């Protein structure tokens, strides 16, 4: 039994108020209360990065972050990047480069890459690898994901 608490947060520019138990993680609230299932729950152990979202612009493993800590903050999920009709350059890039196979890691990869390019618009390959180092992919072997980010990054 856990006390419910009302929190207000902005997700992809939309203001939400939800009453949740204080031990709920951000990923569970995004998926189950707000219906934003683009963010994946993978290892649920802060290892795989499938649950990556931006909180106030910074990448966060939402499986290991209490939703109450997001009270008053701005969250961005993969849904905030772009939809089917208006894909963001990173989304289009990862498709065109063949960086998607099963797709489970893709939302987290896109969020980490978004944070990386916001902080460093001209990353080297090494910097891209470090920027994505908290995201596991078991299909692609990473090369095409790296290439997609390289292609989208503004040329120096």
């Amino acid at each position, binding site marked *: *039994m*856990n*006390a419910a*608490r009302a929190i207000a947060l902005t997700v992809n520019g939309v203001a939400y108020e939800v009453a949740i*138990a*204080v*031990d709920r*993680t951000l990923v569970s609230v995004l998926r189950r209360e707000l219906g934003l299932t683009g963010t994946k729950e993978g290892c*649920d*152990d*802060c*290892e795989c*990065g499938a649950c*990556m979202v931006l909180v106030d612009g*910074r*990448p*966060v*493993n939402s*499986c*290991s*972050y*209490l939703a*109450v*800590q997001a*009270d008053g903050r701005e969250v961005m999920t993969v849904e905030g990047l772009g939809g089917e009709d208006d894909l963001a350059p990173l989304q289009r890039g990862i498709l065109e480069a063949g960086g998607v196979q099963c797709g489970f890691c893709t939302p987290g990869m896109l969020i*980490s890459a978004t*944070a*990386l390019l916001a902080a460093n618009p001209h990353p080297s390959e090494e910097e891209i690898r*470090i*920027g994505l*180092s*908290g*995201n596991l992919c078991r299909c692609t072997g990473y090369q095409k994901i790296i290439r997609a980010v390289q292609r989208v990054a503004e040329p120096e």
Partner: protein
Amino acid sequence: MTTFTSAHTVEEALRAMHDGARPIAGGSDLVVGARQGKAPLPDLMVGIDRLRELADIAEGADGSLRIGALVRHATIEADPVVTARFCALADGSALVGSPSTRNVGTLGGNVMNGSPAMDTGAPLVVLGAEVELRSTADARRIPVEALWVGPGKTAADAGELCVALHLPPPEAGSGSAYVRLEYRRAMEIAVVGAAAQVVLAGDGTVASCRIALAAVAPTIIRAEAAERAIAGSLPAPQALAAVAEAAGAAARPIDDLRGSADYRRHTVGVVARRAVEAAARRARGETVPVPANRARGIGLPYGGAA
């Protein structure tokens, strides 16, 4: 019944802790630990992540450094003062988890979690850091070595909040480094780790040296015999080999999934030698990029042979 309040001032946080609440900064250790069954989430939690007064790095007029408990690893690894003069700490923070872990995880959280494998612990020991603890009744500063009393156990009382780490100004002619053994480059903790601070004399010999070891005992430990093994000598192969042997002898490791005790006793000597090498290079003014254990030349042949 788990309850959560968010503190807006340090005093609010201290009052909540006085009434039994546990502080939560980034929350990674607590939330993951609860799910893994190590310890349930505390019944009373006070969020301290909005206390801006604990989120700054301030340099003193004497060259000392005060790092607020809520300063994140991502800030430390990129801070111009830390990366220039307190390199071992930058090395440690740069190795924590992944970019997201480093954006959420705080220095105070790492220190108070008290893991013997923490990457900032050995650096703080060789840099002579003190931890500042506050409660509603009291404030005190103690050396970090006196803080850790066992795996996950600290000498802080339940009502004491870590508010800052204090680092004295490094001596002229000094350099520091932290090197760990890791199986992969992200989301990893140290198999073993070692930090060194080396002060070089004008003739290039080691005037003094501090060495601390991670993941080889119930807490971070000093390796004083290893420090003595190189004092007065050039950081050259023979003395570095003596450092490695003495560091291995100081270790009291366990067998676990990351390595056997024997493997740890051997490899902690290797990383101690590499930490001294990197620290000495930095003391000479050479650039060894952060983190040191991924820099070219560290751990590669000293004087020729591997």
